[in-house]
């Protein structure tokens, strides 16, 4: 996005404030400068040279955004705030005005190719010794850093479900982080390094389908990677296909009230709303309920801010926890690892308990 396009968009903003009520950050902070329209006034002055790029308040105005796109959905003038925000991030990153935490994460990701500061070579440790790198593969399971290093049960659940469905797939120990965290910081050059690494794997293996159970990876692979001879699927799309073909059934009933949360990466960014609901609804005795605002209008949980403004990030899901509990939900399920982790933190702040589960793990248990 050029500077001229950005300035035109900033002048297009009507200051109607529709973004204000959709934005999780603004709802939490409350002040106008945290709203998109407020930020636009600040960005106008920045791009017109009346503010300094090195000002910490400029940096916070840019990075205190979950890039959840709720504002884009609500904006009557059709402004893509996230595109503007991303362009400003890339400029700030070039100028070095990013948070210390973001600098540290960048270094770790470049060196170890995961944000958890774990050795790259340990990426497939969760799978045990029987896994070997194949030379060719039709299906590749793109594990994600979270499933590979932090919540191995997600990866193990994928294995269990695929075994049950007879899906044969490969994993690669050359897999690197999809790069989504780097892109969110604005480090496009470093992001490109990870993209090149992963695309090389896809090509070498000759894969026809890359699937992942991580919403962030799925978004990056479908939105920010070059197109190739492979199809990219979220795992839930694959399961939904199996369900429609009559291949997927669940044996164990789940006589519980389950509330599904539309994470922003899988939802607003990628438009996957119905597949998780259809697959969940196939579990015997399950009672699916909804947040007041769901699908396109779902409110972001603040998860993307965990690595930059953790305190703010964990304040946001208190609203979600309260609503889910008030609605009598037994289980809050999300298809996004970041949402799941943030909901668990939000529970502590809300002082309320609800069983928060990852979608893939929940489905594996019911097979």
């Amino acid at each position, binding site marked *: 996005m050029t500077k001229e396009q950005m300035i*035109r*968009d900033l*002048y*297009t*903003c*009507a*200051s*109607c*404030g*529709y973004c*204000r*009520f959709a934005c999780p950050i*603004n*709802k939490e902070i*409350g*002040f*106008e*400068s945290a*709203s998109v*329209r*407020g930020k636009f*006034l*600040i960005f106008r*002055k920045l791009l017109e040279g009346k503010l300094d790029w090195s000002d910490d*308040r400029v940096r916070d*105005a840019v990075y205190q955004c979950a890039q959840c796109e709720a504002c884009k959905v*609500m*904006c*009557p*003038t*059709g*402004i893509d705030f996230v595109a503007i925000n991303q362009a400003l991030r890339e400029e700030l990153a070039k100028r070095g005005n990013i948070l210390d935490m973001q600098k540290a994460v960048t270094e770790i990701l470049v060196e170890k190719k995961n944000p958890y500061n774990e050795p790259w070579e340990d990426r497939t440790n969760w799978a045990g010794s029987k896994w070997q790198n194949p030379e060719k593969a039709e299906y590749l399971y793109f594990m994600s850093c979270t499933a590979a290093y932090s919540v191995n049960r997600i990866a193990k659940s994928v294995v269990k479900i695929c075994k049950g469905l007879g899906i044969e797939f490969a994993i690669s120990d050359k897999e690197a982080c999809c790069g989504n965290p780097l892109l969110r910081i604005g480090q496009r050059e470093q992001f490109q390094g990870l993209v090149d690494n992963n695309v090389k794997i896809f090509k070498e293996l000759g894969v026809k389908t890359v699937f992942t159970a991580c919403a962030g990876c799925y978004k990056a692979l479908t939105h920010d990677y070059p197109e190739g001879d492979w199809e990219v699927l979220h795992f839930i799309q694959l399961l939904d296909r199996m369900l429609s073909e009559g291949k997927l059934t669940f044996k164990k009933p789940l006589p519980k009230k389950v509330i599904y949360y539309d994470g922003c990466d899988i939802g607003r960014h990628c438009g996957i709303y119905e597949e998780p609901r259809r697959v969940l609804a196939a579990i015997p005795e399950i009672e699916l309920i909804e947040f*007041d*605002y769901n699908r396109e209008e779902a409110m972001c949980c603040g998860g993307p801010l965990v690595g930059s403004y953790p305190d703010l990030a964990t304040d946001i899901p208190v609203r979600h926890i309260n609503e889910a509990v008030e609605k009598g939900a037994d289980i809050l399920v999300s298809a996004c690892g970041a949402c799941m982790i943030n909901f668990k933190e939000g529970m502590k702040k809300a002082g309320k308990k609800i069983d928060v589960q990852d979608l893939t793990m929940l489905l594996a248990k019911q097979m």
Partner: protein
Amino acid sequence: MLAQRHVDNLKEIVGEKFVSTDEFEMLCYSRDLAASIPDDLLKSYGMIGAEAAVLPGDTEQISKILAYANRHDIPITTRGAGSWALGGTLPMEGGIVIDTARFEKILEFNENDGYIRAQSGVEWKRLVDLAEKKGLVVGANPSSGASATVGGYISTGGGAGIGLAEYGSVGNQVVSLKVVLADGRIIETDPWSTHYFVGNEGTLGIITEAVIKVYPFPGRKHYMFGVDPMGKGVELLAKATALRPYYVSFLNRGLLSMINEAKGHHTKECDLTISLAFNGTKKMLEKIDGQVKEIFAGTHEFDEEEAKEEWKERYRIGLAFKKLGPSLMAQDFRVPLASVKETLQELEAICKGDRWGAESLAGENDSVILAVMILADERDSADYIRKFAYAKDLGDLAKRMKGAPFGLGLHNAIHLNDLYEPRAVDTLKRIRKHFDPINILNPSKTTQARIPQEFINLSMMFMRGIPEVVGLGLKVAAALPSELTRFGLRIIGSGIK
């Protein structure tokens, strides 16, 4: 700049986290929906701008803030979503902006007695959405409901929007209000005192809670018709309005053409595109269906899915084309339904040469609120200033059509004497003085015209004729020390506090 001791006291009342004097924040709170009004113009108005922004968490905190401000003569500007284009929330006299963002709770849905109790910072869209999920319908609600707040709409009179043709204006829908008066007293209004606070634009007190009527919601049917020529469209609009639809709105050809261009749509363009929605039982809707079809026989009927889509877009449709500007000159005014045809004809002549469009919403008593929007580009200073002169042209047009500018705020305060008889103006001023003797609540608005009408009229003439010179003049005025500008404005009879 607000004295530090005042800031410290505010922090004492609401907590440090909820008070800001940061310059970025003050920039944001010195603007509202009409963000495209040039800085130079506001400076020429002698605007001081926000000196502190506060996010109180409950009514008692607002009470303490007002009691304090009243003792120390600090101006207070209350802000809901700042989604009104008349400068109603611009802190002309500086002081404290009270943002009601934390008043976001819907406290009670009472299905049996038919009311909702909500805090004043709740946005109408949420109120309407959640009520409908419970099988209830809200009467009057604003077309800017995705941000307009309960307190904001009630304070600005709620005389235009959705639901008005069926239920009347928001004043008819409010059962009671919780209000903080200028001296900090908290009152709960009764049916007799409620009306003081409907449409007073934050000059008599701050609304913190409202009890609003709701009705059973048995079902809804949507329609959209394209009608040519315009005169026939207006005639059919009047007939359809007589059926008391919940939603009635039209777009003229100019507006729909701009929406189509901006969104890449190909919606059939007619002189008037009329949208309707009726609430009722299946039986009632069947009866209405027959009447609607009879009225609009021979016109282009869009299928119901398209009509529903327009309904879903009701909050957004009026700004969907703004990127073509990227700025807009907009003016809302009320005209009797009987004058709509003539008004639209005159608009063609007035706006000739510029790209413009109009949409309507139902007003009270068979009136129509017309929102006229003219594309502009504020980055082209001379052209933008020239288009400012439309404010006078459209205001004059409204008067000729026996209508009136819609709302007062900052910009329309000059029309006060056109809207009310001298005795009524005097009464309004006395009421204001009674509720707020030292004039801390939203000063320089409504009954306190910032600049006398004669000067505005004169400046509008110059804006139309010699916009470059006016632009230069505004720059010079903006460069003057604020106190000098304000002194000059006082001499010419400004309502500066």
